């Protein structure tokens, strides 16, 4: 796990750094998606999360959920497009999980994609993602403190 400006960045995840979202490939080939540690820090305490229902299709980087905090409201872009096969029902009653554990208990949805390898090419992972985050945080003077 990399750590930049106090933000956690698991190196085995895939990221769109500017959209603040991650993807994690599961053993069955589906892809779990969520928001980053930096995103939840910038948003502040999240008190509302509404996720699109299971069975609905989403395109890559289009809305998969809406979240709201005291100073932010907006949609969460799907890091990978496809059919939503599972959503984190716990977020309905405990949206704070997005703040407390954005990479695990605060996951948002699981996507079944027909072409995950192609879509993952549009994302960054490993050291490339860490470096992109380092540059972004430096450029925008942001972090998780």
């Amino acid at each position, binding site marked *: 796990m990399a750590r930049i400006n106090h933000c956690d960045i698991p190196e085995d995840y895939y990221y769109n750094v500017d959209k603040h979202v991650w993807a994690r490939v599961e053993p069955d080939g589906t892809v779990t998606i969520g928001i980053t540690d930096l995103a939840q820090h910038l948003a502040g305490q999240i008190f509302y999360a509404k996720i699109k229902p299971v069975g609905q299709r989403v395109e890559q980087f289009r809305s998969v959920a809406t979240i*709201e905090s005291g100073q932010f409201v*907006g949609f969460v872009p799907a890091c990978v497009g496809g059919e939503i096969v599972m959503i984190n029902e716990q977020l309905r009653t405990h949206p704070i999980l997005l703040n407390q554990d954005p990479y695990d208990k605060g996951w948002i949805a699981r996507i079944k994609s027909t072409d995950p390898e192609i879509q993952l090419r549009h994302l960054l992972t490993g050291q490339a993602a860490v470096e992109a985050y380092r540059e972004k945080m430096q450029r925008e003077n942001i972090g998780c403190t």
Partner: protein
Amino acid sequence: MSLERQKKLVILQTSGLDTPFRLPSPFFIATAAAAMEMEAIMVFTAKGCGILKKGEAAKVLIKKGGKSIAYFLNLALDAGVKFYYCQPGLELMDMSADELIKEVDGVIGAAAFVDMVQEADIVLTF
């Protein structure tokens, strides 16, 4: 492809920068609607037109030490909220269209506004 009609929110904004504490809510609600894939429209008239004057929203804070009105306005623009202004409302404020921020989508009159709200699912006034 979905055949479901996109829902529409229209906010009529008449309050302006002299009452900054009234301004975060309409922008925030419009932003939320856009994030929830509704068509979100704000129509500015009377003092509301003053919010769209270039540079003005950045000068006014919602409260001492708080965020500027520009923060909420930009949040709405980034989410895809459309902004329209009312021509007579603009004249009431002794303003002209070239004084408005470039992101404004256009001008709207009373008849077009009535058309717009007849098609809307939610109409709010602030």
